């Protein structure tokens, strides 16, 4: 590789490099003891995210590849990176007070978030199974530690342990799957893979086995049934901002690689995996929706809700053409705003001795804090998919893609299951508005948290009222080399 190419590669991957260096810098700064340490670390991390985002903006003009075609900056990667930058910034903003309340305001928290960010950025830019795997593991390792960050809380310890063990198993399965694929096709590069798979009719059991392993590994990462068992425990135990981060950013990145791998590399053999994905999607929506009905802890409820949402997003992959891919992208963008918003509300409720993670804790909120209750109502109705919120448009566009491909029956199942899901969202609305308050509310509101809530609220309402621009962005960012 000549010098020119190396420089080109470094330039193309400069956002990732900035974030990794920024993370190391954050670690160093965390060593200095200072009264304002938390504020400095938050500011530094936000600067790093902003710097990476500006680098991404400068790179966004054309599609560029690096490192011998294994790494790419295209519209698709940039769309997901934008979502992930935004989510990272909002997560950093909502963390400050929460870390104080929990007494864990120290050290490497911010650095770990930045490492997770870099891992997810590498995932969405990867065009080679090995690069994707590297990104996947980098973010997973950071998240394992972050999930267990509440060291004094056994639930957090349990969350981290479960996540590590199950995550490692799924990574192993994924790795085994693609070693088989490599054995069959001689390449791990996505385009090469798709060419090799379409060149000759593969029907041998080895390929089916390989695909089963790949699907299993990836499905685990988005928390779809039957590999969803870790989700409620990890969501409940992890610090709430981390749960928010995990549920939104990590899920977006995982869907990005699912889209790339399934609809790019594996699209020639769609016949093998499509029925499995249909079954997984329906089961995921069903189990997520029905089990959420009986939850009493809001973080567990939101965990099952996120499972159900993952099932709904998988429908876009089943549809699979340009609209299908764009619908998943738009879904994840909208999901980021509304889900981050509702988790910011959960963070807001954590104050002093009050954990605020029981659903009952929300009783009577509207009578005392009408504005924040209204915002919660908007997030909840959006998650339930009721217009005019963005959550409706997200679901609507997935249904458009699905019906276009003739999956009307599947669309009917999906909408009926979302009617079930509506029940547990509006149950919280009911508690807030229709029950008397059983206690005084002390809300852990900081200016930063207010900002997060307002941004999430504007996104949730704004995209719902004016979805056109966002839709066009998603459509133009769809990678072009998928096969119909």
């Amino acid at each position, binding site marked *: 590789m000549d010098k020119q190419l190396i420089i080109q590669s470094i330039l193309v991957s400069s956002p990732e490099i900035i974030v990794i260096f920024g993370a190391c810098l954050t670690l160093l700064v965390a060593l200095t003891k200072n009264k304002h340490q938390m504020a400095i670390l938050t500011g530094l991390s936000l600067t790093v995210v902003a710097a990476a985002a500006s680098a991404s903006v400068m790179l966004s003009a054309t599609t560029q590849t690096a490192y011998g075609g294994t790494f790419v900056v295209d519209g698709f990667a940039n769309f997901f990176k934008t979502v992930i930058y935004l989510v990272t910034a909002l997560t950093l903003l909502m963390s400050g007070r929460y870390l104080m309340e929990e007494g864990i305001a120290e050290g490497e928290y911010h650095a770990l978030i930045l490492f997770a960010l870099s891992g997810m950025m590498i995932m969405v830019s990867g065009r080679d199974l090995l690069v994707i795997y590297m990104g996947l593991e980098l973010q997973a390792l950071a998240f394992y530690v972050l999930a267990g960050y509440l060291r004094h809380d056994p639930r957090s310890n349990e969350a981290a342990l479960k996540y590590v063990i199950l995550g490692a198993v799924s990574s192993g399965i994924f790795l085994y799957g693609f070693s088989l694929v490599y054995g069959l096709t001689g390449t791990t590069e996505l385009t090469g893979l798709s060419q090799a798979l379409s060149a000759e009719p593969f029907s041998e059991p080895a390929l089916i086995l390989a695909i089963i392993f790949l699907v299993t590994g990836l499905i685990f990462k988005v928390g779809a049934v039957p590999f969803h068992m870790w989700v409620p425990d990890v969501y409940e135990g992890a610090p709430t901002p981390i749960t928010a981060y995990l549920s939104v950013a990590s899920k977006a990145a995982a869907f990005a690689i699912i889209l790339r791998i399934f609809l790019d590399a594996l699209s020639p053999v769609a016949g093998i995996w499509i029925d499995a994905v249909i079954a997984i999607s329906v089961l995921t929506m069903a189990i997520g929706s029905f089990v959420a009905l009986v939850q009493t802890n809001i973080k567990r409820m939101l965990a099952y809700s996120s499972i159900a949402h993952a099932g709904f997003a998988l429908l876009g992959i089943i549809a699979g053409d340009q609209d299908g891919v764009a619908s998943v992208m738009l879904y994840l963008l909208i999901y980021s705003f509304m889900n981050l918003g509702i988790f910011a509300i959960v963070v807001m409720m954590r104050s002093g001795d009050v954990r605020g993670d029981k659903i009952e804790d929300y009783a009577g909120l509207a*009578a005392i804090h009408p504005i924040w209750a209204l915002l919660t109502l908007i997030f909840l109705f959006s998650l339930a998919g009721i217009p005019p919120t963005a959550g409706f448009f997200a679901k609507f566009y997935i249904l458009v893609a699905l019906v276009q491909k003739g999956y009307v029956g599947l669309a009917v199942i999906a909408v009926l299951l979302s009617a079930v899901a509506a029940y547990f969202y509006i149950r919280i609305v009911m508690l807030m508005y229709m029950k008397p308050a059983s206690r005084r509310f002390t809300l852990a509101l900081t200016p930063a948290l207010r900002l997060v809530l307002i941004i999430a609220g504007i996104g949730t309402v704004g995209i719902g009222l004016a979805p056109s621009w966002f839709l066009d962005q998603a459509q133009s960012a769809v990678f072009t080399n998928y096969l119909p």
Partner: protein
Amino acid sequence: MPELPLLSLIIFLPLAGVPVLMLLQNSMTVRWAALGITVADFLLATWSLLAFDPSTHAMQFQENLDWVPTLGISYAVGVDGISVLFVFLTALLGWICVLASWVAIDTRVKTFMITLLVMQTLMLGVFCALDLFMFYVFWEAMLIPMYMIIGVWGGSNRVYAAFKFFLYTLAGSLLFLVGILVLYFDGGRTFDILALMEQKYDFSVQAWVFLAFLVAFAVKVPMVPVHTWLPDAHVQAPTAGSIILAGVLLKMGAYGFLRFSLPMLPDASQYFAPLVVAMSAIAIVYGGFLALAQEDLKKLIAYSSVSHMGFVTLGLFTFNANGLNGAVLQMFNHGITTGALFLFVGLIYERTHTRQIADYGGLMKIVPIYTLFLGLFSLASMAVPGTNGFVGELLVLSGAFGASMITGAVAILGAMLGAAYMLRLIRRVALGPVVEIGSSPLWDLSSREIAGTLPLATFVFWVGFYPAPFLEILGPSLDHLLAQVTGR
């Protein structure tokens, strides 16, 4: 000269009032502000009715803006003879709802009035929408404020009723959404309602979409057997909520049949007409008998609504001019009469805090003005000649007999039941010996209450004695609809 966007003004004026209300502190000024906004909106709606050209079925006051051009979604509004009447009805009931909540709502007044205004915007948007996506957004968004109105300001069992209302309607609406998408892809990727009406769909497509639409609209109307949310919602809702439910929301199901099922899916409508007629006949008789057995005033009127709306759906699916005209006129009448009856139940409930029929007696002697109006609306509800109900019901009956003897006979039975339960109500509540209710004496209607009642009473007589202007407005649009559904 750029035209005044009259319909957008009508739709969004109540919403524009929301920030104004938010700034106000005093409950009394909030009430007056809400009243001012809804009355202004009513005047705008009256203007649109007066400026409406009744000689054509074409959509008037049209506005068209791109919303999501990539998917062929636009913000498109316009009214024909059918919808202009319902825009007017909605705007009329809007300020009557504010008056009905004047003292009945004494907690969180500001939030209530804001919710009411939001609801008003959404309902007006439904009737004006000429884009199916926009229609759906407004239609579905109504669930949120209505859920709040029932659930927050309702009676003792309000939470259950609110949930039931929400989930029934949501499940129906979501099937409607899938049906819309099928039409969208079959009709050339457009949500334009007028363009979709021009499409000819295969019978199998029509049949499936018709069934999906039927579920959604039947829940909303409501038709037996998916009517069970209605008595709960009505009984628990505050008076304004009941008026909105009976006056406007129930019309939307029938409006859906009129606007989508009949013109877009004519073959399936013909094919499934016996099913809908049978469901309507069951609703008429079953609703009537249930009303006859009720001991709760609100429940009685709620079940009478099921029966009356049965007349409407029956008239729609007779596919003749009399039936259609009668059905749409009856929709308007039901909005006026049942809205008024719920208002009157609310008025007496504010005084006595009981809705049991057995707790009342001899109201004639204590509150004569109240009883006079109650009697008037009851007579209108049982379709006595000279009231609006008579004209509508007569047209539906003649349409029903035109369609088949049996449906006519069932409808006649329903009309007789209507007289039975309403007369029973009047006899027990207004006549007979005076029953003492509570310790404080009852007082008759205040001028505020009479102000809310008079316009409704005017329409009872106006439609009753001189329905021609209303039928004139409806005429061309319904003729056009009839041509669409019967294939010219």
